[in-house]
């Protein structure tokens, strides 16, 4: 058994017509994050540090829906959320309703380590971030041109757009939006380090055109994010579906209560029991097994293990091995 990690940049109905330029930028980010995580694990960094490090990188990338590049609420604001959890101790931290904190995942970790609580939200969370001296920026820092356009289109279509997903139905007299698919929902990372510690982290800007105050699955321990002694899981997709199916906890519960079940079996069962098109997840087990499954059209994803296996992919048939920096 050795170290392993997996990461995702969102699952959903990712159109195969995705322009090459947008596809390649995201694939490049996934590869870079895989390298960063791999290097940190080789250096012997603990899993918790690694998932935080990787998710920070994904948050900073404007092409994924977390941190800079977060999608906008119906009020044109950003409200970011994140969660982090450590398997061995079940320690966890979560935040919601952030509008100025550059790296939501790091604030979640501070909540875990420096407060008696697990979950802080909105003004209280912002005040705590300042109290902890975390980097903050004007809310405009997180807003990209793409997301302003995306919100405009969502409002025109008068509906909440689930992540970037689902091509909008064409209405008479309205051109179909140029779905550049820039609104990938959620980023996440799971890892097991050489010492066998499991950890997970997930971060998101939520849904395009969401109601202000809406909380999704990402910060909810057991829904979007969960780790215990058996495995670490980060889920992505339709938040409401992931919440009601307590997706990440369910994978861990199956591993725990059904001895002999492999990570892949548990994950496949949980994803299979969730409505088609709703969910994807990445997971690693205590035995170093890695798993990336989804019932959506695709999932931006990457993984690597100590024995040299590494892959990056979006759709079912394009997952390809990559070499990771040695």
């Amino acid at each position, binding site marked *: 058994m050795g170290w392993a990690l997996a990461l995702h940049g969102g699952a959903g109905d990712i159109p195969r017509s995705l322009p090459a330029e947008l596809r390649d930028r995201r694939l490049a980010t996934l590869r870079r994050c895989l390298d960063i995580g791999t290097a940190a694990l080789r250096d012997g960094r603990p899993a918790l540090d690694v998932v935080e490090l990787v998710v920070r990188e994904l948050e900073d990338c404007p092409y994924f829906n977390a941190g800079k590049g977060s999608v906008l609420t119906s009020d044109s604001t950003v409200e970011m959320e994140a969660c982090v959890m450590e398997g061995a101790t*079940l*320690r*966890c931290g*979560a935040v*919601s*309703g952030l509008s100025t904190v550059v790296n939501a995942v790091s604030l979640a970790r501070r909540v875990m380590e420096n*407060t*008696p*609580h*697990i*979950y*802080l*939200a*909105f*003004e*209280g*969370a912002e*005040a*705590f971030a300042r109290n902890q001296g975390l980097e903050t920026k004007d809310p405009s820092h997180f807003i990209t041109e793409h997301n302003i356009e995306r919100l405009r289109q969502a409002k025109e279509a008068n509906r*909440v757009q689930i992540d970037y997903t689902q091509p909008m139905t064409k209405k008479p007299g309205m051109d179909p939006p140029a779905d550049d698919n820039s609104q990938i929902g959620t980023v996440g990372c799971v890892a097991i380090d050489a010492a066998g510690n499991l950890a997970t982290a997930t971060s998101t800007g939520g849904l395009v055109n*969401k*109601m*202000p*105050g*809406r*909380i*999704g699955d990402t910060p*909810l*321990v*057991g*829904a979007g994010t*969960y780790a215990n002694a058996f495995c670490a899981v980060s889920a992505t997709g339709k*938040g*409401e579906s992931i*919440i*009601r*199916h*307590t997706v990440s*906890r*369910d994978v861990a*519960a*199956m591993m725990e*209560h*059904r001895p002999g079940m492999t990570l892949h079996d548990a994950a496949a069962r949980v994803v299979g029991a969730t409505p088609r098109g709703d969910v994807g997840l990445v997971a690693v087990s205590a035995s170093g097994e890695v798993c990336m499954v989804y019932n959506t059209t695709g999932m931006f994803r990457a993984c690597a293990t100590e024995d040299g296996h590494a892959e990056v992919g979006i759709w079912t048939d394009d997952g390809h091995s990559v070499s990771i920096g040695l």
Partner: protein
Amino acid sequence: MARWAIAIHGGAGVDPNLPEASQEEAKRVLARCLQIGVDALRAGSSALDVVEAVVRELETDPFFNSGRGSALTRLGTVEMEASIMDGHGRRCGAVSGISTVKNPVSLARRVMENSPHSYIAFEGAEAFAREQGLETVDNSYFITEDNIGMLKLAKEANTILFDYRIPDTCSALAVADNHKNGMVMNGLPISIYAPETVGCAVVDCNGFCAAATSTGGLMNKMTGRIGDSPLIGSGTYACDVCAVSCTGEGEAIIRSTLARDVAAVMEYKGLPLQEAVDYCVKERLDEGFAGLIAVSKTGEVAYGFNCTGMFRGCATEDGFMEVGIWE
């Protein structure tokens, strides 16, 4: 026809020295709320309607920490939260950071039924409540004299218990003293700790399960703190198999996703309800104190807790009815 059953709670972690008069008052409130649920179930109401009606009653009564009578934040304000889940279809709704909505549990239900989302918090949730025309009141309505006094005591106790900068022996003695007197819950001596949370779990005569939980949260909590009550799978959970509502140290309940775990143990381990409850209370609550109530689709009721007492009541179709505080 299935057999209906109902269980309610008014929080776990009760001061062993709670005055007799308060104990009697608690039992009266529990019995009254339980009876409301029993009457509704006999009249054929759905599990979802019953858990909402019963929790509204518990919220409205100032005795328990939810709605009127909620614990206060560090700033002396009230921030309430609630969630509701319909086991049939596993639909759910949750709210946090509520400061003016008279019955948070009903707002949680509106989120489930009338919004595209499952969980809305703070200003957005308040705005949604107004849009939905729910009854709102001034924040002061929720604040009771008792709780203002409790907040003062909590602040003093926290200073003693948690200010590690004070190297003198007085804090150590205070901690020792508190341990001698019993337990510390959520960092507070049990005599000051106001049991968090009210909740209800029901299976109706059609065999459908539902659960709801509501709370003012933790006395002296940081503003913005979210506990287990609004979190689906932690404080509240319902599916085709059972319905569960938890109470106690929120952080311990979240870490263990306690409510979901009772259902998971039944589903994946095949244990019956009471054994699943006992297993989760024993195996899941690492260092935390908590309790929970549950019903199964076959009409059983169960409860469990690992702390001094839980305000609770339960009733089943075959005539069994119980209201209690201690083991």
